[in-house]
């Protein structure tokens, strides 16, 4: 395992812990987005470019976006 791999593994572990430690769903979606980004960097370092591309879309954009939209729907008082 080279230095770059160790570093990206560590960042994934840190970002994952950060997602669990964040309690507010809105902030957590941002943390999850950062986690998705770290995960896609790890996949790039491990030479899986196709998985990286889908991880960027799904992990860093689609899932946080859906969480943000759900939070917006469930917490908006005027819209209910």
């Amino acid at each position, binding site marked *: *395992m080279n230095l770059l*791999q160790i570093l990206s593994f560590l960042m994934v572990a840190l970002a994952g812990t950060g997602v669990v430690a964040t309690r507010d769903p809105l902030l957590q979606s941002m943390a999850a987005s950062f986690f998705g980004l770290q995960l896609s960097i790890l996949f790039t370092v491990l030479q899986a*470019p196709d998985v990286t591309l*889908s991880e960027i879309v799904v992990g860093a954009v689609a899932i946080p*976006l*859906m969480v943000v*939209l*759900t939070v917006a*729907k469930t917490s908006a008082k005027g819209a209910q």
Partner: protein
Amino acid sequence: MRQQVRIILFLVAATLFGAVFVAAMAGLPTFGDYRGPYGDLVMQTVLKLRQAQQGVAAVTFDYRGFDTVCEESILFAAVAGAMLLMRPQESEQLSDASDQASDRSLPAPVSAVIGCGVVMFPFTLLLGIYVVLHGHLTPGGGFQGGVLLASAFYFVYLSGEYADLLEYVAGHLVTLFKVAGAAAFALMAAIPTLKGHPYMLNVMPLGKAGELLSAGFLPLYNCSVGIEVAAGFLLLLSSFLRQVLAIRKRRPS
């Protein structure tokens, strides 16, 4: 007292688990050390048997293709279920997606953001099409390429407005694409059974490895899955956005 018992219980359990965990980790093969015979077997046979360069694509769509049919129908059912949940209910009505907050004004559209969207949309679309079509030659394939295709439309929303995205998903065209992709995959997989072969047997001419039309059914499977995944993700995003931006409780009149 109970607190102390809990802590002692935790410490005992944690020590036991930790000891077993460390022992198990010490017995693992080192990082990157591959021992199983299956990967090597696939890499040895994939070029000769299937004229495919991509071992992963050959495994997912040919060697264990039936699993992929199930995976794909799980995705289909999940998107369909999410859309069913987020349809307008009887007590709700569709309104235009106007800003609901009254205490602030809308920021003016920034030309740099729109410019980024205009540049990114065609290139992401092109990259998605490339990844889908070359799934049997280079890393990628229907699932990854389909997600990329859908993300091109995410740029439309991110750099513009909900109404811009709505133009693409209006009518039933995207739904038709999604259903047609899923149906084409399952039906193409059933073609060999007409001749008495097993389901999903690669009976198409295999061609020459490295060419766009090679590896038999693989490019066709990739295309149908790519269309289904792209349409599914687009529908998912648009139904989420519609739920938040456009669906309101029907006011008692």
